[in-house]
């Protein structure tokens, strides 16, 4: 797994950004060193007599300060031009590529693969799968407060603003898993709003997509079947949907194929049976402020629910 870092680019766009960053850094570091060197010279020099420079020295200093100012302007022009051309190198959002609608919510991400064919529309949460080597257009929305989508290995960030739509183009060079997280302060659990991008070879991506579109098959016996019953008949289904069951709640993350996801609660916990049990036992202890309430379930009921959810591969 690649941990999020702006200096570990895994796409052409992120590489352009990192190159520009290093160019700025090198030049700025050189300037800083020169200023400090000049300061040290001034500190070490014993100084001249008198309160004021003689006119010819004043003139020389004026020329040097003038030249340095001109040099400052020149460097800033170079910086501005470099920034402008880097921005221009990014593709404009292309509506004919794979389009994914990402909706930021307190404190998770809804992900919807757009398609003209309604049967091909796919909804998931907190994970985005993309094919390698192809631009993917993200359509960024928010329904509550402002969030910001940021997966630094692949691209700079872009805000998700209620009432507006922003676009961001992602393209990964090679297969891998890239972490990102919300970058705009969005309330209590801003710290626990991570997202994963799974870049896959086109064939693997297509396989994933076909599988993800399929409804989950409901277990027909054992603890998992009891868990499915609990899910639909207790509070769970009022917020969560699972394609293939009667659960169709819309306010929480869609849990279809939940068992195949890497984490629970937008990156708060790794997705293991033990962690899921911990989460279901008291969500507020794990992610205080999260909109998921504590539901009173006996330990065996919880175990059944865990068996059901982890079985949704």
């Amino acid at each position, binding site marked *: 797994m690649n941990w999020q870092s702006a200096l570990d680019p895994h796409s052409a766009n992120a590489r352009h950004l990192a190159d520009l960053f290093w160019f*700025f850094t090198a030049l700025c570091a050189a300037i800083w060193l020169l200023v400090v060197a000049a300061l040290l010279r001034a500190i070490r020099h014993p100084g001249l007599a008198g309160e004021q420079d003689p006119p010819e020295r004043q003139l020389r200093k004026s020329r040097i300060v003038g030249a340095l100012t001109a040099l400052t302007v020149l460097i800033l022009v170079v*910086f501005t031009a470099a*920034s402008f051309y880097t921005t221009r190198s990014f593709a404009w959002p292309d509506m004919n590529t794979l389009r994914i609608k990402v909706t930021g919510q307190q404190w998770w991400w809804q992900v919807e693969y757009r398609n003209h064919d309604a049967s091909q529309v796919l909804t998931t949460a907190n994970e985005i799968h993309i094919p390698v080597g192809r631009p993917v257009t993200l359509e960024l929305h928010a329904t509550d407060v402002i969030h910001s989508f940021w997966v630094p290995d692949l691209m700079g960030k872009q805000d998700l603003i209620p009432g507006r739509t922003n676009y961001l183009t992602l393209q990964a060079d090679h297969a891998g898993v890239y972490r990102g997280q919300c970058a705009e302060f969005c309330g209590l659990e801003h710290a626990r709003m991570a997202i994963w991008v799974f870049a896959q070879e086109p064939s693997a991506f297509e396989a994933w997509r076909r599988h993800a579109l399929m409804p989950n098959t409901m277990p027909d016996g054992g603890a998992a079947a009891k868990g499915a019953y609990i899910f639909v008949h207790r509070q769970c289904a009022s917020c969560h949907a699972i394609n293939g069951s009667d659960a169709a709640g819309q306010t929480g993350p869609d849990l279809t194929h939940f068992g195949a996801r890497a984490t629970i609660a937008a990156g708060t916990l790794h997705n293991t049976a033990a962690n899921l049990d911990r989460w279901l036992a008291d969500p507020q202890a794990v992610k205080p402020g999260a909109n998921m309430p504590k539901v009173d379930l006996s330990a065996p009921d919880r175990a059944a629910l865990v068996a059901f959810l982890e079985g949704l591969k």
Partner: protein
Amino acid sequence: MSAPLLDTDLAPAEVSARLEAVWSEPKTLWGWFATVDHKKIGRRYVVTALIFLLLGGLAALVMRAQLGTPDNHLVGPDVYNQLFTMHGSTMMFLFAVPVMETLGVYLVPLMIGTRTVAFPRLNAFSYWVYLFGGAMLWIAFFVNSGPDAGWFSYVPLAGPQYGIGKRSDIWAQMITYTELSGLAVAVNTIVTVFKMRCPGMSIDRIPLFVWAQLVTAFMIVFAMPAVMVSSTMLICDRLVGTHFFNWAEGGDVLLWQHLFWFFGHPEVYFIFLPATGIVSAIIVPFARRKMFGYSVLVLALFATGFLAFGLWVHHMFVTGLPRLGESFFTASSMAVAVPSGMQIFCWIATLWDGRLRFATPLLFVFGFIFNFVAGGLTGVMVASVPIDTQVHDTYFVVAHFHYVLVGGAVFPLLGGIYYWFPKFYGRMLDERMGKWNFWLAMVGFNLAFFPMHILGLMGMPRRIYTYPAEMGWGGMNLASTIGAFLFAASFALLAVNIVRALRRAPGAPANPWDAGSLEWAPASPPPPHNFTFTPVVASREPLWDTPELPVTTGLHADRRETVITSLVEAEPQMCESSPPPSIWPFVAALVISVTLLGSIFTPWALVWGLVPVGITLIGWFWPKGAKEEES
């Protein structure tokens, strides 16, 4: 009516004694509340701002303790969000802007050779409003109603739907208090500098510190209305159901950001420009050299003042604004580096040939250049739209603006404290402790904030209350936390130094640093009337060029009076009286504060509040038969 008593009728010692009697204020509780002495108010203002610095700093230490280790549970998200909101709001609104503005309240009249500020009662009023606003914010925090939507209070998070309780209302009204007092000080500074400079102080002889205060005051007058409007719109959305920022009803979420940053970016320069004034004031006496490039430095202040209004959008580079517009703001944000660069060049050019005296104030100026230039250069980096898309809202930006604000303003302020403390309190601060203070601050500050650059690039966003251990941010966060505590220790050392100095008997000479500007002419601390005779100056460093200052005479010795001069040449025009102490500014501030506090709970408070406010204003302006009302 008795015949007027002029200072020309009396011996100098007699004039001094009489003026002291006229300008001094009763040492009673009433006198404490009624004072209009710019030195007492300025001192009070600075001390209050330093108390807010302490509170804001403690909030920062709790945050650093929380972030020192991954998955820490020292505080939860609710407290953490309040802490960083309180830290930012306090440092910006209650510490940095007021302390810089009101260092001028104390120093400007002394530096320009006059006895008081233009509107002494307005000055007193502004202090009380500021005190009440700041106190309200912190009392709210201690009763668990501290604002928690960040010092920038973005909507919808701070709006009626997502901002719970009264937290954001308290934040919005705190803004009203501090802006009210900030505007009052700005108006005072402008008129004082324009009309009360001593004869001979033409505009090419105004001390650079005073120029910086003047430019800042103008910026405040133009920028603060934007945030007053936006915070009022916010409180209207929350309290009376307007929809300025409600996108579902045709309002606009981004409108808030435009209004806030149209104020918020210039605000950085409210803090930085006066700090450059401190730097200029310190460099001249400690390099024993007149400033190289005085006019360039003045023009740089003006250029910064203008450009500062054209770069607010660089706070909004990732909100999806049109690309060409963003490029304009990249260019304008970079352009503001030019005047800053020119200032640095001129300061170094002055130090270049100076015979430096390595006392604590100058050390802090070196620290300023070392840290501020780094912050300025990372500022050039974040001005670039593409780079900003990676570092915006990360710890890189946290590092950047702390280098600019702490390096660029707090270091000069600390230098200024060591420099002017003898003038304020008549006692010298200890040099040995001062040097320890400096080195501890340098090491602590850089250890606390340099790693944050790297953390931001490694993907650590701002305003997160915790992070998982597997992110690999733990080590650098721990280093940063250790640095923060060292930095705090340097302030503890300053406090010890100050307390020890105050316990000694006063004995600082009038001009301990052998400086050339006018504030060093009167005794330390200055008498209530500042100058027995208004000085006349003929150069930028009058105490160097004419140690026996020529003076103006012909003022009344039996009432508060000052000389009014012309705008450009500072030629004497008239004598103007100045009001004696009054309790009314305090009462008016109290009544207005209660009204504003009430408006957090009901809009009707503003209506009913008009009655007591009207009564106090009538009381304020009612003639009281003082001698000053004659002329």
